[in-house]
């Protein structure tokens, strides 16, 4: 594996998600208490069909 290899889509998606969260946390300044502050399946709602 090297840096010229195609980047897996799962990592690109994870990066995008992390970026959104990082921005949101700054904008909302709610790192200590936010929608991710849950257990088990709270962040895993099924996607609408």
């Amino acid at each position, binding site marked *: 594996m090297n840096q010229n290899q195609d980047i897996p889509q799962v990592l690109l998606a994870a990066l995008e998600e992390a970026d959104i969260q990082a921005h949101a*946390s700054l904008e909302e300044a709610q790192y200590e208490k936010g929608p991710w502050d849950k257990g088990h399946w709270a962040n*895993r709602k*099924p996607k609408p069909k």
Partner: protein
Amino acid sequence: MQRKRSCITMSEDMLEKVIKIFSAKVKDVEFIWHGGDPLMAGIDFFKKAVEIQKKIKNVSFHNVIQTNGTLVNKDWAEFFSLNNFTIGVSLDGPKKFHDYNRYYYNGLGSFDKTMEGINILQKYNVFAGIICGVSEINISYPKDLLHFFLDNNITSIKFMLIKNIGHYKKAALLYEQYYDFLIQIFDEWISIDDVLVNIQNIQTVVNLLLGGIERECVYMGKCSNFVTVYSNGDIYACDSFPKKQKYFFGNIITNCFSNNSSRLKGVIQKRKECCKKNKCDWFYICQGGCSKDFYGNLSVIKPKKHICLNQQKYFAYIKNTIDKFDLKRKEVGL
């Protein structure tokens, strides 16, 4: 092997007290209904719970059920859908693995009914995913497990090292084995490369490594935020802890509370300070880790070295893999 059958359900009075007490000072609260199998309580029990919750204004309730899925039918699924419940099912893989540890009191395996339940939940779009108990029976087959789930349209998965309690026959595994298992799952996740495949153990670490903030409970460092309430009103720490006196916080009815909750909070804080003092490179990920892994009693704050080492190996493996790709984060505005 046969097991004894028992079902102790919380009374309606107790249910009302529990919901009122735990929603009294918050804007949102999550109830995770566990059992045995929580559906043994019957659909009227949950209808009552929702009825009580709806009478309480200005509080957002979220209900999560972790079930073995065997009792799920159309009525349950409609109720879950109507009331916005989130349903996780416990499934340990293909029949030969699942039935080894999960069987009825008469000794028959529960796999077929569990899969039937999952299919119904999927049809009603209330199926959140599965928790796969990892034990000696399935730990050598990470790829087979993952592909079995995907072949059955199960794309949201969490692996969990099972506790050596209850009806599990042989559970004791070394942490080294478990984290090696997760590393193989991670490699397969990368290899499959499907963004719809959601493996919680992996994605929470990847997310944090990439600068995200989505944490599952074991990496929150806030174990004292979770409590377990039993049918008799006893309140204990998170149910990952054994049900022992030192984790007893109090009782709903007697209104008598110990200082164990504060002690647990204090120990978690000291543990975090210990990690920072040791300048652990991975503290930003694990926040001290899951308390059940670290606290033999409420006075011990030192990490268990073998758990830390294996967890660190897991984090490092994922980070090294990510680092091999040229992933550039966008600048976060300050």
